[in-house]
């Protein structure tokens, strides 16, 4: 089992949701974040001054998947979020130690 963390552009969310549904992945968590990488941010102007807004709005998606679903899910995220321009984001994969469904108490693979 793995936890996928993906930082993507906000407007890729819809496409991503559709592809996850196609794969049969039951759910995910989305968090609004701001960050920067190679995409340095943008400049705003206010009453004659420039502001370097270093942070760009992004969305952080967390998806817990079984091992056999890992590669398809990662590919789905890439195809949904890739635009080819700087700022497409990154995907991180962590191993998951334990998963429990709170309502029923099911653990690990039956909880995913």
């Amino acid at each position, binding site marked *: 089992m793995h936890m996928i963390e993906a930082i993507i552009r906000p*407007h890729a969310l819809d496409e991503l949701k559709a592809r996850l549904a196609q794969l049969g992945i039951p759910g995910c968590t989305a968090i609004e974040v701001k960050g920067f990488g190679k995409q340095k941010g943008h400049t*705003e*102007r206010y009453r004659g001054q420039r502001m370097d807004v270093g942070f760009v709005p992004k969305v952080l998606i967390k998806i817990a998947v079984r091992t056999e679903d890992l590669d398809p899910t990662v590919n789905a995220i890439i195809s949904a979020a890739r635009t080819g321009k700087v700022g497409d984001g990154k995907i991180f994969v962590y191993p998951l130690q334990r998963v429990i469904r709170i309502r029923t108490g099911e653990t690990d693979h039956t909880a995913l």
Partner: protein
Amino acid sequence: MSHLHSKPRYFGFLPLLSLCLALFFSSTLQAQPSESSAAATSYLDQTQALKVALDTLWTLLAGFLVFFMNLGFAMVESGLCRAKNTVNILAKNFIVFACASLAFLALGWGLMFGNGNAFFGTEGLWFLSAPDNSPATGEDYRGAYSAISWAGIPLWAKFFFQLVFCGTAATIVSGAVAERIRFGSFLIFSFILCALIYPMAGHMIWGGGLLAKFGMLDFAGSTVVHSVGGWAALAGTLLLGPRLGKYNPDGSANAIPAHNMTSVCLGGLILWFGWFGFNPGSTMAADAPSIAHIAVTTNIAASAATLSATITAWLLLGKPDFSMIVNGTLAGLVAITAPCAFVSVPSSLIIGLIAGILVVFSVLLFDRLHIDDPVGALSVHLVNGIWGTLALGLWADPQVCPAASPAKKGLLCGGGFEQLGPQLLGIFVVALITFSLSSAAWFLIKWTYGLRVTREEEIEGLDLGEHDQAAYPDFQRTYIKSYHIREA
């Protein structure tokens, strides 16, 4: 971040420069001093002078209320759109009044109220510089603006009141074209609308032109202001196209929800409040029984429409959608704008009831037709502007108050088609002329300066793209709502 506009940015200066040059040359060529207001009222005795003062006070105060409606529009529109476009929408609604003020001063008033032909004025066109001895009325009036000489107030009071109406028409357009139009394009169109298109429609009805001769009536402007704004908005919307992600290839529509219902509520109530200047103020006189009657018909129509829209939305869509509630109120107000002085209070209730039902169905219909109207401007102003104009022909009764006397009895008051006929004619003529002139103006702008922002800018938000600013620069929950943009 580079700003990719479809046409070079300096193109925007060309129409503005030409407008400034035109204004400068025309004003220097035609300026004549008009009679001073002191000379104009010095022949009046004390009672007459008091009447003029009271009438002027009333008209100006009502005009200030209508001016305040610009804030109402700004709040409703920005609230109903996404946070990333807030600054842009506020800026459009704010600046449009300035555009209207200058354009109407420079040429609009003259085309609308100057003595002229069936379609536009030809005397006293520029900067109200023609002779005029207002507040003299009727037989005593000498001047270039005979069509409005019935109002016994100084010229500048008439001008101010008519100006705020022009501003209202212009700000209607900003709602329908929101979230994807270039700021400059909207500015340019506003000047054209206020200097040329609105005055032409207005001249036909209030300026003694074609439709006035046929007996068409429109007390406070369901057609002159709201339908004109509506047709101009429709023309713009059609040329612009819908927002990205609004309609799917299979024909279904996506919801693009409002970001601030507090703003919508604030705006809706401000508009309701301002309408108490819009309608009763159109008497341009402190005519006690009339302004009292009009205030009540206005309110009753608004209230009836609010409730009927709420119930219609509740039944059709499952729950009472707040944006539909507010659209209902505004629809009732627009619908009563033409008939407010001419119909009884019970009639105003029926007019409002129907307006509220109409607006809900209209919103759904426009989406079905894939005409993207982010704030319901077309459903409120265009559709109900037409309904209000028609309703006048159905329920007009010259006995309801002194200001109602020009009306012929409506169809449902035993009058046949004497009033309804001119109303129908007026609806079609205004539709034809306004829609075609507006389309021409939008085409011209699209062809020279450009109309729509780039795809990247529309996704990122017009606040950043058009103004390099953010309305809400701090962290906040605004981006999780779906974008409906399927290809990256």
